[in-house]
């Protein structure tokens, strides 16, 4: 059923080397429109590197990253975001001295046309876009369920709210594809259940989700497909129930003591 859907993101034989270290070794990956794809693997497997290659933080050594028919190889980071890829960060990187609402509004600016001159002289378009951004950002905060914190400084928010604000900020850029980098890190089981529901809602609202996560129960519960990386190589790519039983996956997680976390 998934194969009939359109491919949104395609990594074709992507290799990423840092000096002598090969972080990604010929990775092929397809994300279909409207699915939740989980990317898992032991620590150091190259999961975050995949995100960094997609969003233009690193330039891949070889291979092609194709997003919705456009090659992301030569795009600047902000252009990648404008094309419709947004991400969160493993270690929270909100703008701490801005309020939650401002964090999201700043993200919504990406698709707006008015610039500095318009803002300075208060051109109608600039004023209209400010209002639109504000309403849109508030809508997103409500959608994620953290609108009560809108006027609080991001750095003063509880940890769980900060994590969710990261998702809200990513949605603020109006993406087609959302990359979530360990959104449940540090969450207790109750919070994880809540987050799983949130991620499902994000998908049902029309976003495609690529998710890095360690928590197996979370992944098995929500993802349509699971891709497993180990030492920069893809070792499995299937529906959760199959991946769970794959001997190579079990070996990658349990059979290599040096990688145990």
């Amino acid at each position, binding site marked *: 059923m998934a194969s009939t859907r359109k491919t949104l993101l395609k990594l074709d034989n992507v290799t990423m080397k840092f000096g002598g270290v090969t972080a990604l070794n010929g990775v092929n990956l397809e994300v279909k429109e409207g699915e939740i794809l989980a990317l898992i693997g032991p620590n150091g497997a190259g999961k975050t590197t995949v995100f960094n290659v997609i969003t233009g933080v690193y330039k891949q050594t070889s291979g092609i990253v194709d997003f919705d028919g456009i090659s992301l190889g030569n795009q600047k980071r902000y252009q990648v975001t404008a094309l419709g890829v947004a991400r969160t960060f493993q270690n929270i990187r909100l703008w701490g001295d801005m309020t939650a609402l401002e964090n999201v509004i700043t*993200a919504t600016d990406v698709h707006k046309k008015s610039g500095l001159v318009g*803002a*300075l002289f208060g051109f109608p378009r600039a004023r209209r876009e400010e209002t639109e951004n504000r309403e849109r950002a508030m809508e997103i905060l409500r959608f994620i369920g953290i609108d009560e914190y809108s006027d609080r400084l991001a750095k003063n928010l509880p940890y769980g709210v900060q994590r969710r604000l990261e998702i809200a900020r990513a949605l*603020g850029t109006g993406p087609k594809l959302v990359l979530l980098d360990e959104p449940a890190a540090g969450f207790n089981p109750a919070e994880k259940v809540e987050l799983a529901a949130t991620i499902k809602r994000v998908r049902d609202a029309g976003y495609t989700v690529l998710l890095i996560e360690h928590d197996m129960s979370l992944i098995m519960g929500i993802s349509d497909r699971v891709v497993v990386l180990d030492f920069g190589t893809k070792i499995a790519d299937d529906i959760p129930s199959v991946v769970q039983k794959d001997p190579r996956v079990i070996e990658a997680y349990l059979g290599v003591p040096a990688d145990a976390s």
Partner: protein
Amino acid sequence: MKIRNYWNLRDFGANLWENASRPKRVAIALISIGFVALLPFMGASFLATPIASYDAVLVYPVGMFVLMSLGLNIVVGKSGMLDLGYVAFFAIGAYTMAILGTTTKLNTWEVMPIGIALSMIAGVLLGIPTLRLRGDYLAIVTLGFGEIVRLVLLNSSWSKGPNGIANVPMPPNIGPLKFELENQKVFFWVVMAMILLTIWMIRRLTVRRPGRAWEAIRQDEDAAELMGVHTLKYKIWSFTLGAAVGGAAGVLYASKNLYIAPEMFTLNVSILILACVVFGGIGNIWGVVIGATILGYLPDRIRFISDARLLVFGLVLVIVMNFRPDGLLPRKKREKAIVKREANA
């Protein structure tokens, strides 16, 4: 730390402003502007500066320092880029005025836009290659730029080298307001108008998209770029606007001082302006205004102790920065969106 609560003028002022109705705000603004405009008439009071002319001190250093600090604050305070060569833009403005004023018939007001434009062009030309650098590296490159401009002025024939340029014309009179050397009140009002314009500009930009972009860049540039902020563009804008304010100050300075020479545009000026910004409260407009006023005014107020005045000046800096490391009026950290509620406005 308790002392801070009593000292929290910033929140006191901000509350006063936010709780005021529109007519009340207009009244507060008009009274403040009126008070500042009357400052030149208070020369007989305790404010008087011994030896130096009080009027003149209000224009330079005080007024000029405030103007330049506000310009530098856009770069250093708003977008977090350390610029140690700010004097270069001041020099470009001043030399534009001096050269055009002595060789053509253009008056100060006609040179003003040219001076601002040239400073902005210099800002863009310097910005495009260097703003990819961050932190200390950017500071060193800008420091170099400031010195390059000064050395070029010192060694070129068109700038008359170390002799400098004399007989720069004064601005033409504005109606009944006459520009005179002995009585610099009109100069002060012109500087004040330029300061108000700069404050208006910064406030406008801060509550809208550019302000948010700068704020995001200052706090986490990588995150900003990954959230779609065109960081290089907004950094160049910030640099260019700072340059424009510096250039405008330079044009007025040349036509007030009537004589300029390269030795007026040394690294010291850049550092002093930066000190004004940091002393007053980096990133906060009112802090910067107060900081620059004090640092501009103090050395002339205590001129009677002659040689010891720089020592006292340095001591004041050290003591104040010890007690208030974030400056006199630090950046606003209150829990309230600074985004203008356009719907109500």
